[in-house]
């Protein structure tokens, strides 16, 4: 396994653990977007469908990546407990924003532990995509501000 940044200080096991963390968050997001879509009126579901598809694609890519490395990644839960009741389109948007925040935190954790520059590239790209979706959902949920300076990072 090439450590292509040449630093040689990373721990591949930590990277794999963090990859597994992202996979878990993506499993949860795919499941959660089903709930989001169900709480939206039909004419507002496209955004949820596109987001769900994006998360499914990334999830499958991560699962394949871990499989290539011989890492036994955990399967998705059959279902997850919701962080709050989702009874309205506003609740749905708030849940979607929460899902994106969850995957963002997992991507940042991966950036922190990644040894492979390609993995960092993937993480940075997907982190940006998650934040773009989150901004739209925060707006739909009436949350302000809609942007955040440090997606996925805890407060300093």
């Amino acid at each position: 396994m090439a450590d292509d940044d040449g630093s040689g200080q990373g721990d591949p096991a930590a990277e794999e653990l963090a990859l597994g963390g992202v996979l878990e968050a993506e499993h949860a997001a795919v499941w959660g977007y089903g709930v989001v879509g169900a709480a939206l009126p039909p004419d507002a579901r496209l955004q949820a469908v596109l987001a769900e598809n994006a998360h499914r694609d990334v999830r499958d890519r991560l699962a394949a990546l871990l499989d290539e490395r011989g890492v036994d990644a955990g399967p998705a839960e059959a279902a997850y407990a919701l962080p709050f009741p989702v009874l309205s389109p506003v609740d749905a948007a708030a849940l979607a924003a929460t899902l994106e925040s969850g995957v963002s935190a997992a991507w940042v954790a991966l950036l922190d532990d990644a040894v492979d520059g390609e993995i960092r590239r993937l993480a940075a790209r997907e982190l940006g995509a998650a934040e773009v979706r989150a901004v739209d959902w925060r707006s739909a949920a009436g949350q302000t501000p809609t942007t955040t300076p440090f997606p996925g990072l805890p407060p300093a």
Partner: protein
Amino acid sequence: MSPAPAPRPPGFSRRTLLAGVAGVSGMVLLAACTGDDGGDGAAPTPEEADRLAEQLGVQEGVVAAYAAAAAADPALGDRVAVQSGQATEQLDRLRAAAPGATSSAPAQADGPPPGDDVQAWLRDRIGAAADAHESACADQVGGRAALLGSVAAGLRGQVTVLA
């Protein structure tokens, strides 16, 4: 006769969506705030330090672009005051991650060309900065990679607001 134990509600695990979030956030907290030796505890290599200094210059350019856009279009400036403040927060945190570094690139002092669409001009500047941070992120390790990736993502969100 006696009823079987009540089954758990079908399909629901005890895990909550937020449990995982709290877990990973906690991990990052450790790395980002204490500079543990999981990669970012080691001093940056000269190349990494140079690259981080470059990104300081890029972020100074974002802060300057917000100021120039607000001067050219005060109504736009009011609308994006929050994002402008967030850009400054990002600059402060990047500076804290690169103690002693001075940006090698001068902050862009130019403003939008007269008659130009100021919002589009600002959006392009921020998008370019996000690209630069994201690219630099791949060349860093540990907490510095996490910070650059996060700042890049934050700027992508700002581009969305300016669309």
